[in-house]
């Protein structure tokens, strides 16, 4: 079957399949419950617990529609995305070689892994104050915190990937007289690639979570910002709407971050599939 028809076969079965319809029904029910819940004060006189305070989806949709036309909203989105990418690529640039070095040489692993393991449990956000002191500009401190978010995950996955390469591949390669570099390029890199992709997809998800919080805390929260609204970014946008008291904007901000995070993971998964065709045998 040609790729196209194979693809159409997959999609058509998805559309007509019951999964799709049941999913739609579930989401509609959820939205209705949310609408009623947040309007409960007006409809039933008493506010439902929790959901009572949350703005109704209809109001949020109106808000999103308004925000989309505002360039400042897209600017915040751009700022956050740039910080995510900066932190993420730095984490890949540093994390992958470090992970590979750890996987390849036992001594290096023995020296660096214990220190790495002690620093790993410290949540990236605990670094925000120290980062603000250490790094000259606020931009760098947020990028540093997002870097930490992805760095640990990527290194762990690279090590895991390298360890799971079957030792027979090494023996086979060595028996065919390949040099250390050949082994590295022919065996270790392709072998580790799938887990690099996994680490990257998980990592970018974490960077999104971290950038939002870092912007909130350093941009607006008690750690305070040098230069007031210069913080910018979606996290700061949500913080500002919170401080300004417009809760619909908060939810709109949350949804946009969710969408952005989802898209970046999806893009990475796609790139991952392209990089490792031998895995995706359908």
């Amino acid at each position, binding site marked *: 079957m040609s790729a196209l028809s194979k693809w159409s076969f997959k999609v058509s079965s998805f559309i007509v399949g019951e999964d799709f319809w049941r999913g739609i029904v579930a989401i509609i029910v959820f939205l209705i419950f949310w609408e009623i819940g947040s309007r409960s004060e007006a409809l039933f006189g008493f506010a439902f617990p929790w959901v009572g305070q949350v703005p109704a989806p209809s109001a949020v949709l109106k808000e999103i529609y308004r925000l989309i036309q505002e360039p400042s909203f897209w600017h915040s989105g751009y700022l956050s995305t740039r910080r995510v990418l900066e932190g993420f690529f730095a984490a890949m640039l540093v994390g992958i070689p470090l992970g590979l070095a750890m996987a390849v040489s036992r001594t290096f692993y023995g020296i660096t892994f214990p220190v790495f393991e002690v620093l790993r449990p410290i949540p990236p956000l605990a670094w925000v104050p120290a980062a603000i002191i250490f790094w*000259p500009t606020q931009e760098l401190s947020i990028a540093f915190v997002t870097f930490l978010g992805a760095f640990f995950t990527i290194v762990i996955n690279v090590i895991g990937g390298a360890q799971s390469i079957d030792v027979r591949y090494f023996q086979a390669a060595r028996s065919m007289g390949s040099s250390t570099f050949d082994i590295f390029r022919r065996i270790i890199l392709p072998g580790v690639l799938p887990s690099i992709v996994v680490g990257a997809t998980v990592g970018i998800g974490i960077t999104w979570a971290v950038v939002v919080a870092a912007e909130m805390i350093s941009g607006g929260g*008690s750690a305070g910002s*040098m230069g007031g609204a210069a913080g910018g970014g979606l996290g700061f946008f949500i913080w500002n709407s*919170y*401080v300004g008291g417009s809760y619909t904007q908060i939810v709109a901000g949350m949804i946009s971050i969710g969408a952005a995070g989802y898209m970046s993971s999806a893009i990475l998964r796609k790139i991952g599939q392209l990089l490792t065709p031998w895995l995706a045998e359908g």
Partner: protein
Amino acid sequence: MQYQQRAGTRVKSLVFGALITFSALAANPSTDVAQAAAVKDYGKQGEPIELVIGYQPYYTESWSGVIMRDKKFYEKYLPKGSNVSFQVGLQGAIIVNGMLAGKVDIGYVGDMPGIVSTSHPDVRDIRIVSVLGLGYDQCNVFLVRTDAPTFGSSDDALKWLDGKTVAVPKGSCTDRFAQAVFKAKSLKPSEYLNQSIEVITSGFRAKKLDAAVIWEPTASRLVQEGLARRVASGASVNERDGGFMVMPQALIEQRPDVVKAWLQAELDASLFFADPKNAMEIAKMAVSQTTGFQERSLWASAFGSTPKAAGGTDVRIDLAFGFTPEALDLIKKASAFLFEIKSIPSEIRPEAVQPQFTADILKARGLTAPIGQVKAQPDSAYAGN
């Protein structure tokens, strides 16, 4: 087992090597590298200078900074070609952190952050060079939720706080004041939360806070927006508050000309602040440099009047500029208290206060500290809509 022995020997040599290099380096630290890094180089006297000013438009007592930024008085005194950039701090402590990290050169801060900044000479030697203003209800304003009971006097209000949730931005002048009042009146709030002025604002809006101790203009904003009620201030317990200007010793030593120039401009700004007819213009300046504040609440924070029962005062700010006895007394008392609650590692250093600059300038211009006062004006005086 062959692997174990070979790796063992290799490892032992590594450990040995690391120890040698480690001790060699630690033994003879290269001093010249050590010195240069900690002290910032501000250039020779008379040269144009780059200055970063950390100021607080959200702190009325230090509004001389707002006026400086708007009116640019400093351009008259600083060497030609100098470049000054202003950075907003939401809280004095953030400016102090910026100064300790060498990213900010001059700071407009409240009493607690001011004193705390002088207490880290090991990181960076910072000194207090001028008194922006003293007051009773500028930095220390008690606010309670709107649906709290109506109190006969400030004392009843303070007693009500026992067992309630009180929020305060930790490390600010309100933190020192609140802890001093709680100790003096032996009050024990159920929760003493550390929240920024923004979280406190939203806390009152979401009706989650019983009370907060906050500084102007946020106090006036919360009252004007009907989110909270003002019940007491420093005046109710005769506890003074103050705003100070702080500078690194490196700047004072290397560029006394710049320090004098900036303080000359600061004097002009304070005099401008003291003149009641400038009230509306100053309120407009504050609006342009803040977000989320209406002009009326900014005006009220400096020039508005509040009934005595709620801790109101006639003289809202004493623009001291120089180190008046009251200012020195405030610094001494506050630093003793801060040392007691372990906020600063030791009593304030005598050299932390540098009164001679303001004294010389005042003598040169035939003025005496305090150089003016910001008096409360009747609400009718507010000319805005």
